[in-house]
């Protein structure tokens, strides 16, 4: 099978679109992202619990923010990246893109669940309710179902390339939910507070609180990259297990 080519600046960018070339590259990247995640997490927790002051309205309950916001951002961002790779796979028919989309889904679902769980535990002391059927919470719950639907659909189809295409259609249709989640606090009356951070105005929180939140968000980002690269390597092993390059590679290098 001939690979497509995209040559910019003397580098054929599709070279790394082959599982064979990407497998060792991903393996080399994982430790860097994993260590960055661990260090950022320690720094974020230190700032979050020992530097950031008590909130004058919510007391100590607000410290849930350091995981809640990081998880909620990642839940949406991972979905966009997943849909992007699914779409690339659909258009260019590159095998690795579909594998990448498949690898991202469980980590995205994990962060969506964490965002919902921590939101419930934050909602109870501040709103008096674990759950309300409001636009922000409901659209985030739909996001969790989109991840589950994507994974269930792919698991139900035996042939991997067909599973990739079917999953890609679902992932791309579901993208419409992301702006709905993001803007839900503006478009509808909601219990959920508005964005604490946006590009057009100064953050509405103390600098140390913001620092802790951003450190935790970066940690979640690095963790997601490490986890999905690790998973995509397993997917490559599963799908290419009878390929010559892999069988040979096992005997020549640490796999």
């Amino acid at each position, binding site marked *: 099978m001939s690979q497509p080519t995209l040559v910019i600046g003397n580098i054929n960018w599709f070279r790394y679109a082959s599982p064979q070339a990407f497998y060792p590259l991903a393996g080399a990247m994982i430790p860097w992202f994993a260590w960055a995640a661990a260090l950022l997490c320690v720094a974020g927790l230190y700032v979050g619990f020992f530097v950031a002051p*008590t909130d004058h309205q919510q*007391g100590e309950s607000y410290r849930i923010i350091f995981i809640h916001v990081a998880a909620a951002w990642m839940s949406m961002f991972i979905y966009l990246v997943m849909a992007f790779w699914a779409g690339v796979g659909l258009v260019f028919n590159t095998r690795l893109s579909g594998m990448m989309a498949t690898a991202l889904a469980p980590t995205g679902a994990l962060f969506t669940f*964490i965002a919902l*769980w921590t939101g419930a535990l934050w909602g*109870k*002391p501040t709103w008096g309710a674990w759950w309300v059927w409001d636009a922000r919470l409901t659209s985030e719950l739909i996001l969790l179902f989109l991840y589950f639907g994507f994974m269930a659909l792919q698991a139900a189809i035996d042939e991997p390339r067909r599973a990739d295409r079917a999953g890609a259609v679902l992932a791309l249709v579901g993208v419409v939910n992301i702006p709905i989640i993001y803007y839900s606090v503006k478009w509808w009356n909601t219990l959920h507070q508005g964005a604490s951070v946006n590009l057009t105005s100064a953050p509405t929180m103390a600098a140390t609180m913001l620092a802790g939140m951003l450190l935790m968000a970066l940690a979640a980002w690095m963790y997601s990259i490490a986890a999905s690269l*690790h998973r995509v390597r*397993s997917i490559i092993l599963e799908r290419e*297990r009878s390929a010559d390059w892999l069988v040979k590679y096992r005997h020549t290098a640490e796999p």
Partner: protein
Amino acid sequence: MNWASWSDFFAMGGYGLYVWGSYAVTAGLIAVEVIMLFVRRRNALSRVGAPAAGERP
């Protein structure tokens, strides 16, 4: 420093259940994901060389 003592730290101003309930479940789920990642990799590695899906052995 925000906390006078460890018990003060664990109490979280009366919100200990909510704050630690959030952090404990998050840490537990991430630990489970990491374990599942390594299990999947070990299983996948042990099958390298076996016929691919849909192929007759």
